[in-house]
């Protein structure tokens, strides 16, 4: 039966089974755990850049989803060819362009050169030692020459993303859907809504790729279920999630996935305590060489 019309504004494009089983990076020999780490770091980088660019969380979340979509499938982008930082910057630029708050290439590149600076970056996966008290401005300054060359890279990556995704760049974000569901159940409370948003934003970084495997309504329901549990808010009796077209199995899976986010993030932070996560294609290859060498020993 054909899908019901009029639900487009509630649903997203999802990855197919084939796309989930093989990725372009794995074909290029990048191990799955490294791929997950780089994707995680790239998503965090995207989120941080969005915050510094003062973009609304809706736009940031869309950028992270586009960033995630790019690496999926054998015909997606490979970490051995494209640098995660470039794709992240292009995702932010592209999403902002289509939103009500467009931003300029210069702003985007300024923010990224700060966030990727080895000395000044506040991000743990770029600068594991943390920024000094007052890092020298030269360490994160974008010179005019670099700007011009980086701008060309940014625009080329933008076109690459569009081609790789076949222009499928529309992303529906579950945050507003979750609020509507909460209101429907007469359970709005600021604390609960905050917790739900936290879960939804954390799920963006999930190694289980929740935003490209599940529809926004399911993500919203799972976040509500989990948030209400944690905040001790009593929701409707009975299987209320079915009203929102989510079945028990899917809800269970998503709740487990969302709860495991914290553990995953902690493990990643622990794993990359001493060295930065490679966000450039060359660094990824170098990391691969190192791994091969250590495996050989």
């Amino acid at each position, binding site marked *: *039966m054909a899908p019901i019309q009029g639900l487009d504004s509630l649903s997203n*494009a999802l990855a*197919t089974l084939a796309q989930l089983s093989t990725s372009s990076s794995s074909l290029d020999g990048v191990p799955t755990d490294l791929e997950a780490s780089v994707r995680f770091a790239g998503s965090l980088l995207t989120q941080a850049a969005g915050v510094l660019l003062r973009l609304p969380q809706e736009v940031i979340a869309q950028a992270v989803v586009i960033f995630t979509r790019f690496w999926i499938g054998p*015909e997606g982008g490979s970490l051995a060819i494209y640098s995660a930082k470039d794709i992240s910057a292009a995702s932010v630029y592209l999403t902002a362009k289509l939103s009500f708050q467009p931003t300029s290439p210069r702003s985007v590149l300024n923010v990224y050169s700060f966030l990727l600076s080895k000395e000044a970056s506040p991000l743990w996966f770029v600068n594991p030692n943390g920024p000094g008290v007052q890092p020298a401005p030269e360490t994160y300054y974008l010179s005019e020459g670099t700007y011009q060359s980086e701008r060309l890279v940014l*625009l080329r990556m*933008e*076109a690459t993303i569009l081609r790789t995704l076949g*222009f499928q760049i529309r992303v529906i974000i579950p945050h507003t859907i979750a609020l509507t569901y909460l209101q429907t159940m007469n359970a709005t409370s600021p604390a609960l809504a905050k917790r739900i948003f936290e879960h939804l934003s954390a799920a963006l970084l999930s190694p289980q790729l929740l935003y490209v495997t599940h529809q926004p309504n399911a993500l919203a329901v799972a976040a509500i279920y989990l948030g209400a549990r944690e905040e001790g808010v009593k929701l409707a009796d009975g299987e209320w999630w079915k009203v929102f077209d989510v079945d028990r199995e899917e809800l269970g899976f998503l709740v487990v996935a969302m709860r495991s986010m914290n553990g995953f993030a902690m493990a990643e932070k622990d794993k990359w305590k001493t060295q930065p996560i490679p966000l450039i294609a060359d660094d990824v290859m170098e990391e691969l060489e190192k791994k091969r060498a250590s495996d050989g020993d």
Partner: protein
Amino acid sequence: MSTTLKSRWADDNDDDPEVEAQRKHEKEKKKLAKATKQRKLEVKDSAQEQQQQEDENTFNGEAERPAKRRRLSEDAGMPVEAEPKRAICLRFPAPEWGPCRHVDNFEKLNHIEEGSYGWVSRAKDIVTGEIVALKKLKMENSPDGFPVTGLREIQMLMEARHHNIVHLREVVVGDKMDDVYLVMDFLEHDLKTLLDEMREPFLPSEIKTLLLQILSATEFLHSHWILHRDMKTSNLLMNNRGEIKLADFGMARYYGDPPPKLTQLVVTLWYRSPELLLGSEKYGPEIDIFAVTGPPTQQTWPSFRSLPNARSLRLPPSSKSASVTGPVLLPRSKFPYLTNAGLALMSVLLALNPASRPNVAECLKHPYFHEDPRPKPKEMFPTFPSKARLERRRRRETPEAPKHGAEAPQLDFADVFSAPLEGDTGEVGAGFTLRLG
């Protein structure tokens, strides 16, 4: 994983009508059951069976929970109708994504037109042989990367799936990063060329059908928070089956409520509504309404003096300064063939004050569409030669009837059976002529 989920939903959906029918049937039974207790028991039995079936379908072996629930409802002494209904989860459409195909999959046939937005040509899908329209986006001198208008156009056409909006099949790319083509359904005519070339205008019944289709597309767009911002005849495509499709979303964009600040420089000048001409930065779907078809005064549009460009506008002194009550109609004498309802609709569509323009839903309910002549069925539409398909109207010169009282022409039949003269425009065989002697 998603595919397994999808297929399960698909299965659920497949027996949708059956389930629906069952449920109705059950309900009717239950109503009767209230009357006789014995029947009530019977129904319960059948309901239990139903429940078990459902358990098998949706839970795969979790039979305890529903059993518990049933007991609860009995304990509470609730009527049987209150029993939890069978829950069917909707299957959401989940499109996939993949890299763009190459434009070499299409063979260009002929050029159709060039606009500010790009080049359109007729092309053939090499694999399937289908005829499509290929639109190459103009990309040059865009310092900000992929032009946002092109992005919006693609996104909106992907979202706007409606039978009166041109269907975007896919986006294909060329060798260079700048080569991006939209592959759309090919339609034989655009309304502007057609209206220019038509020998007789459309009949009132045909106009109604066309207008209804245009309004239906507009209603769909506005309900999806899309403003087209360039409604005009050259952007309305028509096929030979009487169907009209809205195209060219190069100007379109999303809007919100309250409307965001947008640029004023939209809509081709002739179709631009007065509030845009006068520099309003916040506008809504009313501008599209205006385009689907004397100077403003304080009575017809109270707040227009506050718009930026209105200050520089000098109005001719109004001859009738008496207060205007009720809707202002367009001058009757200009539209002698329009019925009263038609004139009323046109007047409100072209109302100067955006607030008094109707929304699309109101337009569609207008009595104009319900009075005679009724809208003509699409199937009954005449066909026309398609300019985009390089077809021309066959012109056959026919002699006129002899004028009364004119002198009979002197006819010379001497060389009727001899060879035709050089440069004679008589019928010529295809390809070659046989020369004798």
